């Protein structure tokens, strides 16, 4: 039963123009960012190697570390695009999954056929997750192929595991927005309103919260950094920061509420975009960043359970607008 509903979801999605156009855009962006990234990796690699040999020829022993030149950081741009376009696509997918049934009145037809409501929801989720998984896999393949073909780099096992884990996170991130969107569409009676609300929630989670976090970082307020522009000593810096302790706590709390931030943090760590994780094995990175993994998983699960309850208890789900 679940499988049948899931299959129908997949068929439906590939007839949804909006979904298809966003998907196309996402794929184009993936290709562009990966190709650009691969080229940058290639050029930067060449450049680094020549500058290293130059420094060695000078007898300099302390060589500069490779600054973000690891091959897998080519996916960095991809993190941002998934954060925006991928989330939007997931929202469209989840919203249409529910709202089209309302609109066409097919919800009555399905639920009068001996399908439990939870089975119905599970089938929908399964179908949509399958689509997301397919998209993730596709972008993953594009990344691998272009890294090897264009970047011309040999990936180590660790690199491959890191990339695979990163695509896993991407899947989880998109899943969150699909679940959120399905949840809101289930609770709301009007499909287009539900879409609006979901988009607002997305805006708040993905842009507003991180932006507040940035704004609340004092050092971000002045180009070049506040403390260094004032020539402040570390003691003074600490004193000033002590005064803003409440800020700092608030700022953390705000950022912790954003799945986008969690996704970004764990992805940057996995992709070595942020320095400090080069020496760790992929699994150690996940271990260090487990909070972010939970931050991606727990909200999805919680929203899904709440959706169950809402759907189970509702009597007016058949209304068409």
């Amino acid at each position, binding site marked *: 039963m679940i499988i049948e509903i899931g299959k129908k979801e997949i068929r439906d999605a590939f007839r949804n123009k909006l979904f298809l156009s966003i998907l196309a855009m996402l794929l184009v962006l993936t290709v562009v960012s990966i190709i650009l990234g691969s080229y940058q990796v290639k050029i930067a690699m060449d450049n680094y190697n020549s*500058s290293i040999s130059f420094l060695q020829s000078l007898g300099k022993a302390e060589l500069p570390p490779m600054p973000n030149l690891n091959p897998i950081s080519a996916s960095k741009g991809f993190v941002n695009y998934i954060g925006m376009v991928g989330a939007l696509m997931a929202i469209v997918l989840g919203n249409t999954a529910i709202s089209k049934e309302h609109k066409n009145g097919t919800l009555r037809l399905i639920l009068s056929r001996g399908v439990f409501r939870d089975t119905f929801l599970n089938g929908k989720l399964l179908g949509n997750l399958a689509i997301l998984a397919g998209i993730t896999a596709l972008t993953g393949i594009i990344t691998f192929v272009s890294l090897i073909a264009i970047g011309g780099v040999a990936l180590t096992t660790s690199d491959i595991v890191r990339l695979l884990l990163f695509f896993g996170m991407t899947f989880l991130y998109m899943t969150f927005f699909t679940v959120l969107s399905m949840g809101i569409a289930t609770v709301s009676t009007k499909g287009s309103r539900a879409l609006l609300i979901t988009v607002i929630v997305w805006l708040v989670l993905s842009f507003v919260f991180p*932006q507040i976090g940035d704004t609340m970082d004092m050092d971000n307020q002045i180009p070049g950094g506040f403390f260094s522009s004032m020539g402040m000593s570390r003691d003074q810096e600490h004193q*000033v920061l002590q005064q*803003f302790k409440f800020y700092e706590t608030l700022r953390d709390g705000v950022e912790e509420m954003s799945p986008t931030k969690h996704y970004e943090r764990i992805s940057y760590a996995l992709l070595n975009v942020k320095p400090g994780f080069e020496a760790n094995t992929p699994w150690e990175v996940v271990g260090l960043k487990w909070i972010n993994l939970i931050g991606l998983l727990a909200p999805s699960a919680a929203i899904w359970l709440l959706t169950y309850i809402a759907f189970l208890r509702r009597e007016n789900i058949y209304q068409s607008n």
Partner: protein
Amino acid sequence: MNGIMTLARKEVKTAFRDNIFLIIIGLFVLLSVISVYIGSSTKNAELQAYQDILHLLKSQGATSLPSPPAIYPLSVLSNIVSYVSMIGAVVAIFLGFESFSGERNNGTLKLIAARPVYRDQIVTGKLLGGGMVIGVLLGIILIFNLALFVLVSGMTPGINEIIRLLSFFLIAFIYMMGFYAATMYVSIKTNDSAFGFMLMMIIWLTISFVLPQLAESQRTFAYALNATAQTVTQVSSDTVASKMTELFSPAAQFQNIGKDLLQMIPETSNIGLGEVLLKQIGAIIEILIPGLAVLLLSYKAAQKEEVL
């Protein structure tokens, strides 16, 4: 003219009755207030730190004291630039995405068209109505910000600052109206308001984030290259590639103007308003042109029969 005003007033009224729209407005105002508050606190801390340093030096008997940090009052408000370019655009989209398709679904578009008003007047009325809402919104933010600015930082803005601030809000208005006009055009063309909305969201994402991101990645790339070789050659921060990419993004242009107007860049902080505007004339035109183009297209599209 009367008809246009009636239409415009109705737009304003329905906008402020819509709960979701009110939430967004609330968010917008709240964010700008928070940002000013933080900006002001930072400036205060900065001044405080300067006083501390002075005190320390005097106690050590130093005779040459450092000059006070160059504080440009308006840079306190600088976070507004990113909020307007981000949420401001979304507000404009929310305002406009049902302007025609919604009325079409209600059947009210037919009712209006059967009254003694011309179709272009309907478009003008809606544009005016949207303009009034956006104007009111920016006005609220302006007042809030000014009040908070004076309250928290204790500085009083001079004539020069006020003129700069006003011209920034004027450009913000033009920027948001551009988005509103584009959304209205999409709304005229499509029946499915959800589709139109998502389409505009994608366009917004592209010009506000994707393109600047591409430009940025080109820029940091050029920088990373130099850092590796440990040769700090003076690279102009704009590479050709990044400049080209930004050309397609009114959002980036808007931010550039905003940074100049709100004294975020020391070099342009003290030059006259006219000079700033002259320097950014290309950017201003770039913000203006797409909006005007879609507006004309809207007038044309509204004449068609299928519009109803």
